[in-house]
């Protein structure tokens, strides 16, 4: 659970979940499927890559029962994600949006820094 000092800012939100940034602990919180999980920056980016690398097309074609769920257990977290195809697509959408906002924030920050102050 978030530390008492956590200063959570929303990074991105969809109907199915949200990603928050804790600027106190320098981590991201993923709120998805009724539970919150903290990720360090590198772990969060890696988790997104992992989710993106899942071959959705082959899961659709595969009729065996193990293809109904995708299990993800990110290192350094207590969380185990058991995702249906639907969950997977929702999670992807959420992470895509969050990744974009993180990058955008970074670009804006560097633009602001490189603009000489006119004060």
């Amino acid at each position, binding site marked *: 659970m978030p530390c008492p000092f956590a200063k959570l*800012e929303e990074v991105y939100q969809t109907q199915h979940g949200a990603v928050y*940034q804790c600027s106190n602990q*320098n*981590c991201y919180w993923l709120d998805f499927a009724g539970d919150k999980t903290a990720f360090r*920056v*590198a772990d969060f980016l890696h988790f997104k890559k992992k989710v993106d690398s899942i071959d959705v097309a082959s899961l659709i074609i595969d009729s065996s029962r193990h293809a109904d769920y995708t299990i993800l257990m990110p290192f350094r977290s207590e969380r185990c994600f058991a995702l249906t195809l639907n969950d997977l697509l929702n999670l992807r959408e959420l992470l895509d949006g969050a990744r974009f906002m*993180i990058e955008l*924030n*970074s670009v804006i920050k560097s633009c602001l820094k490189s603009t000489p102050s006119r004060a």
Partner: protein
Amino acid sequence: MKDLLRLKTSLNEEIEKLLNDQIKVEAHSSAIYLAMSSWCDNQGYDFSAGYFEKQSGEERKHMLKLFKYINDRGGKAISPEIFNIPADFESFRSVFEQALEQEMYVTQQFNNIADQCFKQKDFVTFQFIQWFLQEQIEEEYVARRILEMFDVIGEEGTGRWEIDKHIPKVSYSAE
């Protein structure tokens, strides 16, 4: 919102991926040259075997140079998987033809990275890969010169023996 991303890494995601891909290419070169070394040794081309063994070591060093750079910049270097390494080659000459093709491919990859560095305005990485671009001039030169020996000396009679003997002497000087 605090910029956590740049606190972690100064490398843009695409540039990091390109550099990791290049790690794979260098590792692949290293493995191919080792295969060539073994083949040459097997066929009795002692000097060529030694030459390729040395080349293989150089390619590994190139790989580690990229590896270190990615990690130094806060990215994550990935230890590459290597597969599809041939164990047999058509002929003595074809080994060197393949070596030249491999070097030309590597040059092309670095050109591509340089192009991306400009597009992303990552001049730090551009500066870093200068060394590799320079290195490729030598690599291609040596590979071409060796191939020319097949025509200049000729493969008939003791020709291949003669060519093999001359391999370690081929060198490049920018002066």
